[in-house]
Structure formats: structure tokens, C-alpha cells
């Protein structure tokens, strides 16, 4: 079960990843509807999932949190958000939700909470994110949050039997601040 609430949105919470969440993460990392768009193309067993959780303990450069729904009882994990390389000028973020929770705006909400945390807690110049083209869901999340399309890496990755483009997005601090004012 996920740990303490770290940040809170209107409908979702971001909670710490606990050892018992290995099974949940493993499910996401193996489900082709999640893993293929994420660029994960190797199977992961439970002990690998466990090891990767333990590897991140004490890691101050990467932040991993579970996206959860709260209904008064135990939280229900529905996905994961991730901030990578916090020592970089523009750290990278990524996110996934289990397929049955797509289409409800949870991805945008969870990512917005993560973006706010990143800019508020860390003196970073900006954030960046990548997605395979076409990945309308993922690109939609980024565009909802004001990310700018900075370009497209042609034929960048092999997936699903062919080379696909990777779209590249960036959000600079002042663009994030402007978007905050608009809210």
C-alpha cells in the first residue's frame, strides 16, 4: 500500500512508494498499454520491481511518487509520476496511469501537482518531457500544462515494429509562472 501523502491535488494525491507497492508498479511496467508508450520494452518480475524501489531509496536526484485516488478508505494507486535528474538545469518528468483510469483528467492533475512541486521546491530553470508520436494522451497532458513543443526527434526509437518519432516538450519557469496566474 502507498505511503504518506506528499502532495495533494483536488482529486488525486501523490504518495510515497513503499516496498509493498512493487506489485502495483510491476503491473504498470509490464502492461503493454502502459509500458510501450513509456518506452519500457523488457519484462520486469516482482523482485526486479522491488530492487528498483530499493535502488531509489536515498536517491536525492530522482523523485518517484504514486498517483492515488482517495475515497476515505485505503488509497487506490492508479499510476506513477517521476522527476529525473534534479541536478540538471531542466529535469525531465514522466508519468503513467493504468489504462482503466485514462480519460478522466487524472494524468493532467497529477502531473500539474508534480510540476508545481518541481518549480516550488527546486531552483530549476525549466522542465522537459518526451513522448512517442503519436501519443495524444500524453501530449495532451503536456499541452494542458503549457509545455511548448520544442521539436521532434525523427525515427528516434524502435517500438511496436517500427521506428517512431519522439516529440520533445519544455516548460520554462516564467512560462509556468504565467500559467499559474492564468489559473
Amino acid at each position: 500500500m502507498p505511503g504518506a501523502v506528499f502532495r495533494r491535488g483536488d482529486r488525486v494525491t501523490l504518495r510515497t512508494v513503499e516496498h509493498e507497492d512493487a506489485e502495483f508498479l510491476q503491473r504498470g511496467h509490464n502492461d503493454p498499454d502502459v509500458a510501450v508508450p513509456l518506452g519500457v520494452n523488457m519484462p520486469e518480475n516482482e523482485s526486479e520491481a522491488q530492487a528498483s524501489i530499493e535502488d531509489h531509496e536515498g536517491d536525492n536526484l530522482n523523485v518517484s511518487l504514486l498517483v492515488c485516488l482517495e475515497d476515505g478508505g485505503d488509497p487506490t494507486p492508479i499510476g506513477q509520476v517521476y522527476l529525473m535528474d534534479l541536478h540538471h538545469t531542466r529535469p525531465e518528468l514522466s508519468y503513467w496511469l493504468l489504462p482503466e483510469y485514462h480519460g478522466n483528467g487524472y494524468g493532467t492533475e497529477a502531473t500539474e501537482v508534480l510540476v508545481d512541486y518541481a518549480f516550488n521546491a527546486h531552483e530549476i530553470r525549466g522542465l522537459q518531457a518526451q513522448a512517442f508520436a503519436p501519443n495524444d494522451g500524453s501530449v495532451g497532458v503536456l499541452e494542458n500544462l503549457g509545455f511548448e513543443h520544442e521539436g521532434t526527434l525523427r525515427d528516434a526509437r524502435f517500438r511496436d515494429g517500427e521506428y517512431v518519432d519522439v516529440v520533445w516538450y519544455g516548460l520554462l519557469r516564467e512560462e509556468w509562472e504565467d500559467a499559474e496566474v492564468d489559473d
Partner: protein
Amino acid sequence: MPGPVVERGERVTFRTVERDDTEFLQRATTDPRIRFPLGMFRHRNRAQRREQLEAHAENDDVYAFLVCLDGESGSEAATDPTGGETASHDATAGHPDEGETTRIGAVNVHGVDGDRAFLSYWLLPAYHGEGYGGEAAALAVDYTFRTTSVHGMSAGAYDFNDESRGLLQSLGFEEDVRVRETNYVDGAYHDAYTYSLLRREWAD
């Protein structure tokens, strides 16, 4: 001194990087005219550079070459009574003697075991403006597509590096992404451009 010739262009040769080239290569991690455009923001001492050399130049996933001018920029022919053929074949076969070759820079291609290779290059400032960089980069691109099965090659250049951006475009690389303000370099945030050339474009 660099090792034997691996590949030969019209004017430049690619020679293996040897461990006693550390001091030469260290210039790419000290001279700001070289290290800022390369994105090497921290200077390195000889021991650190030597470690980098062993990690990169001696890694099977990387092609690492010294860009050299042989025989005082092609004066081999003049010193060889047979007309140069013998001299250049000897140079290919063995380690060069002092004075036989001049190191002017380096070319690296990372990721040659994968489906995408990453090209980088630098020349000592004294050798800029002679077309050596373009010749070396073109040679590295051809060599990589000929000797590996990579699907494409990528390269990066900062916004302040017009020379390198022009060079990549002249080789047929296309600008894919402008990553805004991605590094703090020499007093300001700078954009980094990512370029790529796919095998099918190279073949044309």
C-alpha cells in the same frame, strides 16, 4: 603519440587514441574555446582525463579517433622518393614516429552498438577555418554508417556555435529539436540544438 591510421580522408587521418594522448585530449577539457561548445563545463586534470579516455576510447560502444594531419599536412610525398605510396602504407601499418603526424583534434561516435549513434568532434582553434572539421565529421559519418547498422546519427550544438551548426547542415543533418535554455554556459543560459541524419538520407 596516436596509434596507427584506421581511416583516411583527403587531408585528415583518423588514428587510434593511445593512453599517452591524454595530455593532448586534456585540452578539450581545459581550453574554454573547446570545452564550452562541447558542453564540458568542468575542467579536468590529467588523471580525470585519463579515466575518461579509458571509459570512452576503450569502450566497444564508442568509436574514438584522433584527427591527424600526416607528414606535416601531406608532405609525405615530398620526403618519400618513391612518390608517397610507400610512406602512406607504412603509416597505416604502424605507430607513427615523432613528426610523422600532427594531432589537430578528435572525433567520437558514441552508441555504435545501438540503433542511434551520437557524433561529436573538436579541433584545436589554430586549425579552424580550413575545412578540416567538415572533412573529419563527414568521414566519421560515412565510416559509422558503413561499419555499423545504426538507423541514424545524432549530434548537438549550442546556439552560440554557428560554425558547428553550419557544418552539420552542410553534411545533410536536419535540425530536430531546439531545447531551450538547457545549460548554463559562460554566464548565460543557452539553447541546445539536436540534429539528426537517418541512414536513408545518408544513402541518398
